[in-house]
């Protein structure tokens, strides 16, 4: 089970399946970021992991921190417009990733 690095993935969906509340049978090629950022971690991340496990508790802290770089979009595709099932046009921004990074 090799840890796949953070990359751009694609999935064909209807607009309704985006979960944004629009009802439209038009389809969209949703691009999203998934995979591991293990190789981009720093000493900070190892320390945060350790603190999350035991360190914070010992110091009476309840912080929840991210213990590694996140695989996230570094840019989004331009606006996407469609006609919903009530024949009305909508334009939505920043729904599909253009490229990803840690």
């Amino acid at each position, binding site marked *: *089970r*090799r840890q796949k690095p953070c990359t751009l993935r694609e999935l064909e969906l209807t607009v309704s399946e985006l979960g944004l509340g629009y009802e439209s049978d038009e389809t969209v090629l949703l691009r999203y970021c998934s995979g591991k950022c*293990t*190789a*981009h*971690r*720093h*000493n900070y*991340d*190892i320390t945060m*992991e*350790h603190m*999350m*496990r035991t360190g914070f508790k010992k110091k009476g802290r309840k912080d*929840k921190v*991210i*213990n*590694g770089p*996140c695989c996230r979009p570094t840019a989004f595709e331009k606006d996407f417009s469609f006609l919903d099932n009530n024949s009305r046009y909508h334009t939505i921004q920043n729904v599909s990733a253009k490229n990803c990074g840690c």
Partner: protein
Amino acid sequence: MGLSAGATGLYFPQNEYIETMYVGQLAGTPVLQVHAMLDSDSERPHFYLCWMSPLKRQAYSSWFNLDISTGVLSLNKTLEESDFSWSVKKLFLHAMVLPNFTKKSQCGNKNSARIMLDFVNATMPQCAQTDMKELCFPHRDTSNPHIMENRFPGALRQLRRLTRNYSVLLPADTLVVMAPLDREESECYRLLLVCTVRTETLITKVETSLDVYVNDEDDNAPYVNGTDTADIIISYNRTKGGSFGTLFVFDRDLTPIFPIDKTHNKYVGTLLNNDPWIKDTFDIKGTFSEKKAAVGGIRESVHDYQLVLKRNLYVTENRVVQLDYLVNDTTYPGLEGTVLLHFNVTILPVHIPSCSVSSQAGKVCVENCLEFDGFSVTYRLEVPDKNMSAESQSCFAAISITQASDGMWGLLYVNDSEALRKPECQDLQYLVVAQEEHTQLETSTQVHIILDEGKTVPESQQFLSCAENRQRGDCESMRGLGATTGRCQWRQGTDKGISENYSTCSPDLRTCPDSVCDAVESKDMSICPQDCTKEPVIGGHERGLSGNGIKACYGTCYCFSEKCFCEKEDIEEVICDDMC
């Protein structure tokens, strides 16, 4: 105080004199007396006040007179209050001593005495108010006399305070050396001086110690204690700079290493052989050390001499030579100032018998290659049968050999894994040829490489770095780059903190990690980043030699192309959940 080297004749045993001056001291009052040590009975010291340079002629210099023959410094004028008006507290004068008259007023050689006068703006305290110690032995007179050994006896210090008007009861007011001294017998004499002061009501005794040093001069010849001959055999280790055999030369005199230009005990060595081969091949290196004689702890010199190779010796060179090395104590006046040392050198040829392929990770080694030093052997692969078929020729590129950077052996490695997939390349024959660089002498051996049936690699699988794996399971199931057995190997560390025995996944645990980025590993950083990486390492670690690789690591070491990590591995990875 440092006497200039080889100072013969008159010299000041003390380089600094001090006295305190008060208001109202009359002209003619003696201040202090300087002394000079003689070298012969006929010598007569002539004392002069002098200036380190014309600049140093000071306004106040005319206030003092130095008696040319007795060395007594006295006042030329009565000291008035006005003479103490400036805030200065310390005036300096310089005295020099010559065996004859002179008009020159510049302090000639470096050997002059410094006179420091403390000017106190008050009248001289009466005897009763004077502290006994100060009366007898002024505390700031910290200068210790230095007397050159083997020299003429004489007065070296005036013990009485000339500025004080009291009568001397008993004979001793000058410290005198009665006979020539020998430094090799004692370097220093600690004298106890007792000053007895009697007033109407009281007798007080004050004691102090005075250390009189005996300076060294080169009055001892060098000698050999034990053998003056070294028998040396040079075989495998024949590297430039290699040193062989050690011979010792002793000298009861000192060898000052500072300042370099003023060494009074200068040792010069000369190789007497004029055979050019010897001169191009050998050198003798001498080093000095100071040691204490067993008896009395007197300092003496030890020089040790070693034969040094000025170049690598060829494997074929085979010779017996005798080197004669003359050690000369150039500053020793006597005749026996030299010692002759002998180095009997036998150089054996190195025979390159045969080549063997050690099982260890494809290492090819000429017999005794591990001991070779100073000459190099290169390895190459040849086809055993010159008129082999075209397909077989294409298989030939599958395996290659490289020279170990840190040793005398060759390393066989897979150069083209694609070629190994062809059926005709499952059974390969090679000729490994070892050649000595200079003499071009060669030897060779046959190598037979058979591909393991079960381990043929599917076309698709791309070779990744074993080191990317963080767990045993992933590691041992993977075919990694450089894996000599076809599979990566897992090493489980057991130590708690940062340790050299860290857990990691390796292509071959015999050579990786071993803190050596060897010839094969250095061909591709992902073969063994544990030994070779120059990239940052995250987590507790220690870098290897000259900053490469990972010598010690906390927990598990795993590496990606841009970074390595040292991390405890006992957790399931926490991924970012809803709190993002």
